[in-house]
């Protein structure tokens, strides 16, 4: 294919002294190509298989390579700012044409660029300079500025037809080379041949045509007659007058279509309960979302519940949710939309579903909606929420849903569920809640997982046999989980053999597997706690810096594992000196070592504590009780 790229070089002389070639193009031409490439626009023209081979975010280099090898011969567009028909018309105006067999875009890069031919209706260089005089000192052709900066920053208006997008900034736009107008360009893509034009380009052309119409003598005559009658009608045709052609220029059009498409994709006209989740991946909140959804579905029957995933297009663990509950990935309908458009699409979707209640389970978009338009939502549905824990930043400051979102949303929340009584009490106290608010704050233990394991006696047998002390650690390798403490503990006690299960999810720490102590073994991801080799370990180590009631602790407890755990959040509601080995100095590796040594010093006592813990969680964290309380809450409200 490199040969093909070379074959389309007959006009390469326009690049003058360039001798260096990249993928068959003179280096200066290749550089222009890189400026122009818009990966997501290019991907939109590929079929699913081709997109899959390129990956979700292939980057500019891979897209340019693919374009030169595959896209150019097929007439695909790699740049949203190159319109082949527009280019042909502009060339014709100067007596030129793209030679037969040559790719118009490459012709423009080699020839049209040097002749300052603007190949898109989306950019008007005279307008651009007139309205951004600071750019008069721009050292290159002014289109270069729009290509490399203007189309990624909201303040640069490129045309009398406007800025072509909703006006919101996107910090990652330049890095991804996603022009801010890309959502408008891809709007109603199925109705357009994207290799030639788009909704946006047609809309802009309509505006430009209408502007040209204003120069029509017949219309000018009509305006002059009216202006004679009404002096206020002065100079209505000044070039700087904004000219709009709805609906293409109105972001609300996309929003309305997105809400309708999402409703259609869900495949159900109306539901009683909508559960809003951020995504579904390895997290305790995802499990709770599944538990709540199951309980609501049991209470309301089939098709009474829908799950809407709002923040990330990730749904890795669908098995957490009942098979017959519909799940909607809203993110694919709001891709590229800035706020508040995404919030409003969610609002419109919910309004269309006419639910009796909307339940927030860690959905950021849901909390934004309730915080900012809570009165609207509460006008057609009860709003409930789950709160699990604070988050803590690297400076030790608390943030997260229990702070701003909760404060903003509280007036509109019918009830809030807490799986930790401590968390509930802390919020009630912190915010000095009056009784009317306090009564809507409900402590409800999440049920333990549906498996039956009892490793009671394993610790004593392993210690009696003199086997190496094997420690189980399981969770996300994220900052919250404090894997750094595990490393320190491993170094303090090289005799421990620590088996660490899980994976990074948030990727907010640097974890170098090659730089771990030899007594830490990374075991990989696991699918269900009961699938772990629980009868081959001595105890569970838990090191989180903050948390609610962590699932892994509950699952260890219900399995009969002795537990050494940081006494954070709701953990002390489960792991007490009577049931395990809580560590109060949660940042101190030596404190964990001391607790481990206490556990190992008396295996019989440790086993007794574990047995007691197992008994308690089986009694208190009961699935049937959870379902009946959810059913009662949904039927009768928080005062039931």
């Amino acid at each position, binding site marked *: 294919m490199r040969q093909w790229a070379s074959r389309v070089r007959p006009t390469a002389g326009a690049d003058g002294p360039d001798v260096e070639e990249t993928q068959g193009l003179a280096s200066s031409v290749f550089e222009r190509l890189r400026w122009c490439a818009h990966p997501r626009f290019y991907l939109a023209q590929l079929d699913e298989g081709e997109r899959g081979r390129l990956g979700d975010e292939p980057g500019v280099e891979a897209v340019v390579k693919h374009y030169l090898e595959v896209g150019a011969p097929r007439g695909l567009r790699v740049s949203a700012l190159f319109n082949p028909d527009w280019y042909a018309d502009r060339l014709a105006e100067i007596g030129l044409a793209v030679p037969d067999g040559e790719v118009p875009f490459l012709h423009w890069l080699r020839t049209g660029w040097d002749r300052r031919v603007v190949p898109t209706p989306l950019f008007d260089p005279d307008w651009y300079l007139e309205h951004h005089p600071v750019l008069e000192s721009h050292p290159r052709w002014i289109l270069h500025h729009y290509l490399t900066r203007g189309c990624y920053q909201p303040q640069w208006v490129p045309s009398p037809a406007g800025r072509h997008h909703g006006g919101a900034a996107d910090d990652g736009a330049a890095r991804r080379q996603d022009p801010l107008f890309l959502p408008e360009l891809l709007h*109603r893509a199925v*109705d357009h041949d994207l290799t030639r034009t788009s*909704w946006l380009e*047609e*809309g802009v052309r*309509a*505006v430009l045509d*209408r*502007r040209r*119409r*204003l120069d*029509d003598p*017949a*219309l000018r005559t*009509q*305006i002059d*007659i*009216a202006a004679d*009658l*009404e002096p*206020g*009608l*002065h*100079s*209505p*045709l*000044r070039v700087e*007058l*904004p*000219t*709009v*052609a*709805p*609906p*293409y220029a*109105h972001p*609300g*059009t996309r929003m*309305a*279509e997105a*809400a*309708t498409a999402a*409703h*259609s994709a869900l495949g159900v*006209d109306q539901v009683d309960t909508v559960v809003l989740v951020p995504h579904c991946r390895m997290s305790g909140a995802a499990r709770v979302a599944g538990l709540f959804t199951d309980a609501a579905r049991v209470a309301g029957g089939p098709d009474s519940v829908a799950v809407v995933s709002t923040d990330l297009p990730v749904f890795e663990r669908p098995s957490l949710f009942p098979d017959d509950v519909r799940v909607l990935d809203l993110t694919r309908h709001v891709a590229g939309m800035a706020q508040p458009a995404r919030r409003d699409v969610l609002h419109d979707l919910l*309004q*269309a579903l006419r639910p009796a209640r909307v339940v927030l389970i860690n959905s950021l978009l849901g909390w934004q909606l309730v915080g900012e338009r809570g009165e609207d939502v509460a006008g057609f549905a009860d709003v409930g929420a789950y709160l699990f824990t604070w988050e803590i930043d690297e400076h030790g400051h608390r943030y997260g849903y229990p702070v701003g979102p909760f404060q903003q949303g509280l007036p509109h929340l019918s009830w809030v569920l807490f799986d930790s009584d401590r968390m509930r009490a802390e919020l009630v106290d912190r915010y000095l809640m009056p009784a009317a608010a306090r009564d809507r704050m409900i402590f409800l233990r999440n049920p333990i997982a549906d498996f039956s394991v009892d490793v009671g006696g394993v610790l004593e047998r392993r210690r009696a046999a003199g086997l190496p002390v094997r420690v189980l650690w399981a969770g996300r390798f994220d900052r919250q989980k404090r894997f750094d403490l595990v490393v320190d503990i491993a170094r303090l006690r090289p005799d421990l053999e620590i088996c660490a299960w899980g994976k990074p999810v948030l990727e907010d720490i640097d974890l170098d597997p090659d730089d771990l102590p030899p007594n830490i073994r990374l075991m990989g991801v696991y699918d269900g706690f009961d699938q772990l080799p629980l009868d081959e370990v001595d105890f569970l180590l838990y090191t989180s810096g903050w948390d609610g009631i962590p699932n892994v602790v509950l699952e260890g407890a219900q399995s009969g594992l002795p537990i050494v755990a940081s006494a954070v959040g709701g953990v002390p509601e489960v792991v007490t000196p009577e049931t395990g080995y809580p560590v109060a100095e949660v940042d101190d590796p030596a404190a964990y070592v001391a607790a481990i040594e206490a556990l190992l010093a008396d295996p019989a006592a440790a086993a007794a504590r574990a047995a007691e813990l197992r008994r308690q969680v089986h009694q208190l964290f009961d699935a049937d009780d959870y379902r009946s309380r959810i059913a009662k809450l949904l039927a009768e409200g928080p005062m039931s």
Partner: protein
Amino acid sequence: MGTPDLSVIATAHSETVVCGPTMRSADLAVDAARARGYVVETIVALDGATEATRAYFEQPRFGHWVRWEFAEGDLGRVRNAAVARSGGRYVAFLDADDLYSENWLAEGVAALDAAAAEGRRVIAHPELNVMFDGGNSVLVHIDQASPLFTPYFAYLRNYHDSLCMTPREAHLTIPYVSRDIPNGLSFQDWQFSIETMAAGWEHILVRDTIIFKRRRDTSLGQESSNRRSIVRKLPAMAIDRVQDLARLGKASERA
């Protein structure tokens, strides 16, 4: 005068001198239509008019306009009442502070006649809105046949300007609703636009014609927001029906 081809109905409530350019533009447009051979009746509909407004329109200068007084207190209702009393095959409203282009009435009647000859049920609008006074801008309308037309936009704004030329039948079968009482708002034009499209009327643009709109700043954002919530409740805008709104040929298919 035989059966009028067109009834021009200017509505006024509290306007006075601002109507000067309006009525002059209307006179020019009426003269142009008559010059094309159309029979035009001219009506000023005074709805709960202030003394000043009534006195203004009692000037001999407006002697060639019939003046009808109403006490509807509502733009939609006064329009409905005026339509009922008027006799034209077509009806063209004019708000007392806007201006017609001189050719609007003549070209509008011609467009409606041409459409009727083709068996199409059509409501006509000017090609352009030129806004003045409170900000100068040009609004380009999109007609239903345009590839840019999307019914979803009707959730957000009235697709068509309130100024239209309409076969009498459309007004009689789809009268304007009265104000949105709880919000004290009027969105009759928007609802009329949606309901006529849903009933199979095609809204077209008449080339070379203009409405000059006097734009005064009001709390349009809030009004618009409230109106949007009302529009959503129209049956034609239901989330499972909106995609069919104004699909050309749809109504005849249903029929």
